[in-house]
């Protein structure tokens, strides 16, 4: 496929509603004016760490940065250490926020709700090859985990999602989401998809059931809810009444059939489970209440090697990507997920490598030996635990880890020992770790 040299920023009618909620609405014309107004506040080029929480303001900032020829940087969280680690590797970094000064020394620009009064400009065209965003795999923030994407990849990904996530892309639909815009799944479904289809985005980021219900009430039917298994379980089990939802899109971790059936019954919506990864975006879907296998979006091509690694490619991708999940294909081209490669774990939708987490633990002054492992408990969410030896106190170790990691990835418990029970070959067996974990229990 020949790549077009430029691509538009937007493909939807200028009088269609981009943002709605709280009795307010903003159409695409006003949205473009807001984008250009904000772009005018930015330095030329450079890297904008986009921390805006309000979904509309994030969208304005995201597009403003691209129009300005700069690159959006999407940190996995807003911890100050994470921000400074990320900024260190970038030329001319600055922050974008929407209120609440971020704890950082970096220069910052605020994006606000003041409506730009300038006339609506033409829909801008963006260089296809322009670096549009850099995101990071959630477990770490090292330079190696940076995922750069061109406008070509983002735009064409959005076109693919329009075709495969929505049945009638032309129809206006209201959208509420519980996931942050900075997460690749949130970015694709709640920021990029609205650029190419008539989605009306509710600007909040509700998390608790009552907040989700209120956000849904704010927008007109038909409604789409973008969420995760973790949030959906809470919604299904809550006693909160929800307005009619037509479709629920879930990602970050595979749904079980039981949970999907419960969610569909409690919320009266069709649930679509999406498989994807930060490097590629959404890749396949299934209606998990009725379908066990995944149906890949047709633009993607898969190749498997003898070590059961799957490499995925597509015309719009900047380069092929090797998947961290094990895929087993059927004759029909559909596939099942049969596990993870290597030492990848998924904690409430945040992915990390146990090896990388253990290396981080070992890098802490006063830690001489240590290992992070999956906690052997029957709970609804996989949790991590860790053992270590050394002179550092457990609160020192935790303080150090907390500077680098999303809180959900922190080991619980963190067990301090005089010496780790390594076997003759120097290995810590799973059995040894499980018994350590159990002997640490107080209850």
């Amino acid at each position, binding site marked *: 496929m020949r790549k077009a040299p430029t691509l538009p920023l937007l493909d939807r009618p200028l009088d269609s509603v981009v943002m709605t909620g709280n009795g307010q609405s903003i159409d695409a014309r006003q949205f473009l004016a807001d984008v250009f107004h904000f772009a005018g506040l930015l330095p030329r080029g450079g890297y904008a760490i986009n921390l805006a*929480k309000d979904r509309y303001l994030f969208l304005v900032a995201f597009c403003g940065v691209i129009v300005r020829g700069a690159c959006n940087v999407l940190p996995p969280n807003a911890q100050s250490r994470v921000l400074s680690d990320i900024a260190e590797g970038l030329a001319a970094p600055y922050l974008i926020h929407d209120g609440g000064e971020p704890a950082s020394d970096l220069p910052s620009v605020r994006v606000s709700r003041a409506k730009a009064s300038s006339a609506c400009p033409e829909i801008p065209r963006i260089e296809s090859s322009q670096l549009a965003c850099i995101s990071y795999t959630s477990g770490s923030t090292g330079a190696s985990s940076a995922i750069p994407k061109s406008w070509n990849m983002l735009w064409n990904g959005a076109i693919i999602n329009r075709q495969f996530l929505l049945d009638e892309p032309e129809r206006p639909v209201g959208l509420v989401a519980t996931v942050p815009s900075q997460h690749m799944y949130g970015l694709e479904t709640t920021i990029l998809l609205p650029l190419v289809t008539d989605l009306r985005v509710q600007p909040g*980021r509700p*998390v*608790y*059931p*009552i*907040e989700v219900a209120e956000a849904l009430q704010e927008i007109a039917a038909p409604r789409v809810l973008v969420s995760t298994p*973790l*949030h959906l379980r*809470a919604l299904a*089990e*809550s*006693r*909160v009444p929800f307005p009619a939802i037509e479709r629920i899109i879930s990602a970050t971790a595979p749904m079980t059939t039981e949970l999907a059936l419960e969610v569909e019954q409690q919320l009266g919506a069709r649930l679509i489970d999406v498989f994807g990864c930060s490097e590629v975006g959404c890749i396949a879907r299934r209606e998990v209440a009725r379908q066990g296998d995944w149906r890949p979006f047709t633009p993607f091509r898969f190749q498997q090697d003898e070590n059961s690694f799957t490499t995925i490619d597509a015309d719009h991708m900047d380069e092929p990507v090797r998947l961290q999940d094990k895929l087993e294909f059927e004759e029909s081209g559909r596939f099942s997920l049969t596990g993870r490669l290597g030492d990848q774990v998924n*904690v*409430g939708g945040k992915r990390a490598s146990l090896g990388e987490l253990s290396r981080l633990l070992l890098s802490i002054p006063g830690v001489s030996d240590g290992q992070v492992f999956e906690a052997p*408990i029957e*709970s*609804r*969410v996989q*949790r991590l635990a860790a053992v270590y030896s050394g002179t550092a106190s457990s*609160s020192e170790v*935790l*303080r150090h880890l*907390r500077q680098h990691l*999303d*809180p*959900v990835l*922190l080991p*619980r*418990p963190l067990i301090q020992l005089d010496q780790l029970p390594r076997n003759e070959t120097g290995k810590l067996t799973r059995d040894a770790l499980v018994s350590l974990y159990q002997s*640490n*229990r*107080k*209850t």
Partner: protein
Amino acid sequence: MSGQTAAEQKMAEMIVEVLNLEDITAAEIGPEDDLFGDGLGLDSIDALELALAISKEHGVQVRAEDENTRAIFANLRSLTAYVEANKSAT
């Protein structure tokens, strides 16, 4: 230690049970210890689980404009006070 009121004690027991906290007992949770961050080390997943348990047990719906606004979840005392206040209001 303790200094927990009866309501706080019940809440502490719920926290330990719901969140599978295995290296701390309910009585060890100080009423004004931070539940998140440097204190008990709870996180966003815990907040969601806890909110659900509170809605089932007390019929009180927890809300936070922003997940990071942790005024309600600041400590055992603030959480218990919030639940008690909203229970009596209904």
